[in-house]
């Protein structure tokens, strides 16, 4: 063996200290950047039925940097596109053609920073009438606490069930909750198999162990138990994995009839590659996240074909806004872009029908109305309808499948046009 020592032992002790200083220093630096403060007090404007204003303020808080930045930016694209479309069509006509003025805050991908971004956002200058955000459930939870205190409606595309279990009056969830998504991901798969003359008895559930992955996996597991299916593997993993080999080995060893996976883009791609490398041809049912993104197909090409995923809205039914998105950004409109655009349409329609400059008044109307304009019409069922807890009672999950490298809505038959293809047939 060669000798390669670069340092002497005497230097080591000094360096040891230096190293610790360095470690502590970084930790400090990292926490400090996350701490900023601001008193969150939001004085609401005067509500009145006959309001003519130049503009209505809409805020958005999204993870624009950090590990979920892509989803955050996609969401922002959808929001901006919706705002553009609404303003170009004359703004909020009942308010004298008021234009939507959008302001944006970066939640980063860190929950603590998201909350402080929200606080700052609501405390400086004139606060927005409503907020759209914050994409990830983990971020949305902390942001919702702030918006609730400030009495500003938060229109969210986060899935987590707990979001609507807090008794919040200013929180609105457009997509179906994780539990519904998990149940649908499970049951639709069983139904699709039955439709193809197959049966799914043994299932593997693998999920990224964050708020989103865990709540959806829990729903899957509950559903499997209820349906009397055997869960041969129920495995969480860190969303930061750099190698999916070990997890895939476990999947293959458990010999499932179907794989249910909750993953973001990087882990979904790593899983797919490792599954292929280990020769698996078991049908895959993804749980939104990475499985329905443009990057998924860009990374994997033909390998995506036949992969299923549950999602919140049918991508082959996005209509005008979907086409406009494709034209503007050169890729198909991702689910999060669409659903956030729907949130903007809900906001605009609420104001149109119930002109107000008061956030509380707006929140009240959001609970009352039904919203079916623009992108809100391409949410499942054709409209958005919130109950008193902020749940969109009309929300219904959709199963999509990659066919010829395009996402096609394939289940349930009453709300989609496409047909599922069983893998290998």
């Amino acid at each position: 063996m060669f000798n390669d020592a670069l340092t002497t032992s005497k230097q080591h002790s000094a360096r040891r200290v230096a190293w610790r200083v360095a470690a502590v220093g970084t930790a400090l630096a990292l926490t400090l950047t996350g701490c900023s403060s601001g008193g969150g007090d939001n004085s609401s404007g005067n509500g009145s039925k006959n309001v003519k204003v130049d503009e209505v303020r809409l805020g958005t808080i999204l993870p624009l940097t950090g590990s979920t930045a892509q989803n955050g930016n996609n969401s922002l694209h959808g929001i901006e596109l919706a705002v553009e479309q609404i303003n170009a069509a004359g703004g909020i006509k009942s308010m004298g053609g008021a234009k939507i003025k959008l302001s944006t805050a970066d939640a980063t991908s860190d929950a603590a920073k998201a909350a402080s971004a929200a606080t700052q956002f609501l405390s400086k200058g004139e606060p927005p009438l409503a907020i759209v955000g914050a994409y990830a459930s983990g971020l949305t939870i902390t942001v919702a606490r702030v918006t609730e205190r400030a009495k500003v409606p938060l229109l969210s595309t986060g899935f987590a069930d707990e979001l609507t279990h807090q008794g919040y009056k200013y929180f609105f969830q457009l997509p179906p909750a994780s539990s519904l998504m998990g149940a649908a991901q499970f049951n639709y798969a069983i139904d699709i198999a039955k439709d193809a003359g197959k049966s799914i008895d043994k299932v593997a559930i693998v999920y990224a162990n964050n708020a989103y992955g865990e709540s959806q996996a829990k729903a899957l597991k509950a559903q499997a138990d209820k349906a009397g299916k055997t869960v041969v593997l129920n495995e969480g993993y860190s969303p930061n994995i750099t190698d999916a080999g070990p997890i895939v080995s476990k999947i293959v060893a458990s010999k499932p009839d179907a794989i249910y996976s909750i993953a973001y883009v990087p882990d979904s791609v790593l899983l797919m590659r490792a599954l292929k490398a280990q020769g698996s041809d078991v049908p895959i049912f993804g749980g939104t996240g990475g499985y329905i993104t443009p990057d998924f197909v860009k990374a994997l090409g033909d390998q995506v074909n036949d992969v299923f995923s549950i999602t919140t809205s049918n991508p082959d039914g996005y209509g005008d806004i979907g086409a406009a998105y494709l034209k503007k950004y050169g890729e198909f409109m991702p689910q999060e872009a669409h659903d956030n655009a729907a949130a903007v349409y809900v906001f605009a329609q609420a104001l149109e029908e119930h002109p107000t400059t008061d956030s509380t008044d707006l929140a009240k109307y959001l609970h009352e109305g039904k919203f079916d304009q623009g992108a809100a019409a391409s949410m499942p069922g054709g409209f958005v309808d919130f109950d008193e807890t902020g749940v969109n009672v009309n929300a219904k999950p959709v199963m999509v499948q990659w066919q010829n490298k395009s996402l096609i809505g394939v289940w349930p038959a009453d709300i989609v046009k496409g047909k599922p293809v069983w893998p290998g047939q």
Partner: protein
Amino acid sequence: MGLEITDLQSGYGNIEVLHKISLAVDDGDYVAVVGANGAGKTTLLKSISGTVRAKGGSIVFNGNDLLARPAHKVPQLLIAHVPEGRQIFPELSVYDNLMAGAWLVKDKDQRAQTLGEVYDLFPRLKERSGQMAGTLSGGEQQMVAVGRALMLRPKLIMLDEPSQGLAPKLVTEMYQQLAEVHGLGTSVLLVEQNTTAALKYAKRAYVMEQGRITMSGSSEELRGSEEIRKAYLGI
């Protein structure tokens, strides 16, 4: 020619340690600088090799202004410096330590030849050539430090207390080996607290006290001086 130092002022930060020092080492000379702890001897050598920046005066070697050079360019003039405390590379082998001394020697044959000469001078190093230098005894490490400096084939070799920490027998050996090097034409500038040894081997000597040269002359003269005998030779 040789090394000429005129009115050198040097020190650390705002503290001046050397106050207008002048001295010379002629070609082929063997000069010692003696003085008590803290007199400024090490500072003097560091100022010459450029690792401490001088603040005034001049240092010229064979017509080259040393103060205009960064430290790593001083050895290009064939000035070698054996620093205080040996400063060998503990986790390089003896061989690699010596070869590091020939970093500026681009000619492979010359390196091989000089290495042979160093091994002749210090046969012990040849025996230990593959050993990590940090595991050598103090005396052997001193040989590595001197041998490493010799690998440059210097015109001037500066040594900072080479006898420090050595047993009397080894001190004698070390000085005999240095005399051999000097005999081959290398000028020597020696800094020592060990005044007896220094005045025995050097041709000329300077006495330094608190950053000033207080006396100079041939070693013989200084050995005869009453003051020196009292203050430094303990007689």
